[in-house]
């Protein structure tokens, strides 16, 4: 765990880091990188077939990220004022009972009823498709791959509202989904989970958001069963968009990261901070 000194330093530089991150995303996305040719030349020359580097593994990367989101010992949750000043959408994220932190939206795209978002801290990224975390990068352990996302009915469910008039046979969205996840542990080993998801409605409720206040939301419960017989629930509280090809807005979600393979496994909670 990080010591207090490093945490204080991190908290102090956090707004700066986010600014730098957004600036870097902008610059590199635009391809404006003056005077980098020589640097990149050196990088390319030294790392092409860089065998020693390849053998080193990902342990170092994991160690560096510990002070960012998923194992920090104090909350890094932006205040209402900070969120207002932020020039981006934001999420609060936390794992298990750990303190929560703030992520900013780096990329968002919608295409044929599918929403793809990339959320960032200074050194970590969560890739969310229609409200589901399908990949992560830079964490101590990562979801490297989620299979069969094209057939994932979650996006369909996020545009529905439960209705007593609709029988289970008339439901417009599939109720089962088969997938597979490759999870890379901090050791670099990969665990492959084959899963079956089943969806059902929960109870509509109200959730408080920092800037939009209380929001009425639908509740969807996804029961996930692995081929080894483990079972857990992912939950989604959302507002349907009710538009053709629209994607419902997830106000809060709880998703299982992995099954007890390391200290950071557990339930990942993502909540709307700034819409």
């Amino acid at each position, binding site marked *: 765990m990080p010591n207090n000194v490093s945490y204080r330093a991190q908290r102090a530089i956090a707004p700066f880091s986010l600014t730098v*991150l957004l600036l*870097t*995303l902008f610059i*590199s*996305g635009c*391809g404006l*990188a003056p005077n*980098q*040719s020589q*640097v*990149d*030349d050196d*990088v*390319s020359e030294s*790392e*092409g*077939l*860089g*065998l020693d*580097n*390849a*053998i*080193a*593994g*990902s342990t*170092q*990367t994991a160690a560096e990220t510990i002070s960012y989101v998923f194992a920090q010992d104090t909350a890094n949750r932006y205040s209402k004022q900070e969120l207002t000043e932020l020039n981006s959408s934001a999420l609060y994220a936390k794992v298990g009972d750990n303190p929560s932190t703030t992520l900013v939206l*780096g*990329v968002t*795209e919608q*295409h044929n009823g*599918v929403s*793809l978002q*990339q959320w*960032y801290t*200074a*050194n*970590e*990224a969560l*890739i969310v498709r229609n409200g589901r975390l399908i*990949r992560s*990068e*830079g964490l101590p352990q990562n979801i*490297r*791959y989620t*299979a069969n*996302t*094209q057939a994932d009915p979650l996006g369909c469910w996020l545009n529905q509202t439960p209705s007593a008039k609709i029988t289970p046979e008339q439901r417009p969205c599939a109720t089962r989904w088969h997938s*597979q996840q*490759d999870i*890379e542990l901090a050791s*670099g*080993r*990969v*665990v*492959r989970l084959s899963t079956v998801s089943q969806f059902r409605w929960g109870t509509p409720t109200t959730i408080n958001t920092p800037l939009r206040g209380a929001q009425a939301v639908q509740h969807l419960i996804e029961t996930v069963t692995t081929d080894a017989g483990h079972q857990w629930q992912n939950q989604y509280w959302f507002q349907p968009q009710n538009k053709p090809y629209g994607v419902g807005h997830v106000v809060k979600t709880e998703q299982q990261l992995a099954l007890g393979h390391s200290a950071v496994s557990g339930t990942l909670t993502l909540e709307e901070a700034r819409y």
Partner: protein
Amino acid sequence: MSRLTEILVAGLTVALALSPVLAAHAQQTKAHQTKAQENVTVTIDAPQHTQSIVFEGEPRLSQLTERLRWQDVYWPGARLCSQTVQNKLEARRAAAVAQLQLLQGVYQQQQDDTLSNATQALIEQVKQWPLLGGYSNSTQQGLQPALIPTTLQRNWALLAKHQPYQLSVGEAPQSVHWVGLTQEPGEYAYAQQPLAKWLGERQQAQQVDSTDTWEVTINGNINRVDEYSTQRPPLQLQPGAILYSGFPAAQLPQGFADVNKRLLELLQYWDHNGGSQQEGLPCS
């Protein structure tokens, strides 16, 4: 000569003296501008479509990966290759084959037919291994596309002098490969089970003694498989892994101690997506 004439003459002299310097500077500027605008060709080799793109100037890595944002890509298996790197890799392969040929000669001299034949079979394997000379990102193979644009170090420029480039991506691996000193090298279905158990069952089926075996994971890590390991939980077979059964150290003559290491280093560049076997691609 009037004062004005003197000044004009002096100015002309200075201009003439500096003209080669100025011309050289102008040439350099022009060359720099030409270089900056040099086109770079990249072939994206993805399942169901191969696409060749010509970039104006040297693109950043993110400009390639962003094009695949909506594709179902298994990023740990992604490889960025250039013709320059592929040539280096082929030179390494040739050196490894040459070393194996020398080793086979030694076994022949020692009249050890078993090892001589096994080495000959291995030589043929190594020549056929699908290898793709990928750049590594300083810690491991594979790409992390969301983090690439966050720093310039991750977001390399694809230099014109190394082109053409090839970005090979594929689907999640459903198999492992077993190569080296095995009677049945090839592709096997991936199964979730302890690595040593998987290997032991197949060695038993081949009625061979256990050999020294290593795994090369899809992200380029090399681990020795120790069937007597008491590690709990035991190491599990990894999807996409390459298992290499090599020469036991005791059977390697003096001067050949690094044979296994050289071959393992080649196997880190195993082509998981088949891009090295398609004709017409930069790294095929």
